[in-house]
């Protein structure tokens, strides 16, 4: 024993898999709900302190993909290397996959009931409001410069009009604005 060894024994593949499987199975509401849950649970187990978690979270945001999945994969790797990475991936992915297939089968049977239709219509009606709030929060939290404002408006218009070209347009916008930021800084 020397004092550089970590205070807690490294958890194995199955305990990490079980950990994320549990969180993914019971947390409804996507990344912004799941990430805080993951953070608190990791801290409680003594696997990862809070400040390190937020470093990982920042890194996870620089990679495309569902936020909850990325954060879990980075945390899994930080805690237990590649096996932890794989365990987190499978643990997050499997419960919704199974739940979705069950729900799809169930709706195949009762999906035509008016009450079920009404419920789905109501649940969908929140989507424009939720996404608008997300945009609002991103806009509110950002540090604005005139350059960023112009680029962002141009980006919003271009990507919205791009249709199935939205993905290439997104990368073009990112490239142009990375270049513009550099010019502005020099």
């Amino acid at each position: 024993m020397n004092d550089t060894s970590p205070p807690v024994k490294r958890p194995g593949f199955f305990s990490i898999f079980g950990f994320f499987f549990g969180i993914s199975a019971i947390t409804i509401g996507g990344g912004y709900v799941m990430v805080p849950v993951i953070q608190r649970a990791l801290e409680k187990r003594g696997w990862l302190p809070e400040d390190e978690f937020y470093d990982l979270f920042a890194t996870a945001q620089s990679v495309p993909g569902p936020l909850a999945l990325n954060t879990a994969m980075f945390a899994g790797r930080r805690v237990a290397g590649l096996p932890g990475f794989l365990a987190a991936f499978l643990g997050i992915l499997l419960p919704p996959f199974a739940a979705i297939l069950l729900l799809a089968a169930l709706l195949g049977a009762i999906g035509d009931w008016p009450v079920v239709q009404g419920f789905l219509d109501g649940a969908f009606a929140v989507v424009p409001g939720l996404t608008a709030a997300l945009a609002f929060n991103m806009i509110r939290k950002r540090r604005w410069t005139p350059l960023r404002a112009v680029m962002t408006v141009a980006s919003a218009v271009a990507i919205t009009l791009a249709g199935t070209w939205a993905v290439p347009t997104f990368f073009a916008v990112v490239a142009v604005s990375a270049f513009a930021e550099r010019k502005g800084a020099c």
Partner: protein
Amino acid sequence: MLRLALVFLKIGVAAYGGGWTIVGIIRTEIVGRAWMSAEEFAKLVAMAQITPGPVALNAATLVGYRLHGLLGAAVSTLAVVAAPVALSLLIGGFFAKATKSGARLTEALKTGTIGLIAMTVWAFAPAAVSSGLNVAIALTAFAVSAFTRINPLWIILGSGVIGAATRAFLG
């Protein structure tokens, strides 16, 4: 099936900004290609958000399932996470350290991400104004999630119940 995989690979590469941005891209790709009607997709999004797990993954799984059954569900789910997983493996924990070029890239990504979320809002906005009830629900959802810390799940479930009750009593 191959085209389904390719479309979801492409979606995965640009999947910045979390769940709803990705759902917006999926909608543009799938409804834009006429693989699914806007109403069908709306129903699917409603299901995706009341199922546990990341909403974007759920939406991808559902689209695959609806188009090509169980195999389609597996293909679309794996395709949409392929790029994120590969990139996560490649870049270490070093990338997001506050280097100057890292900060620049983060800002550029924010510019693009706000663009993507604007597209998502635009794509779903017509659904919000289709009835008075939907306008009210959308405005409430906006106010609650922009100005309070209440879990959006309660708004989703509450709206679902209101929708079901309206349908049951008013036909």
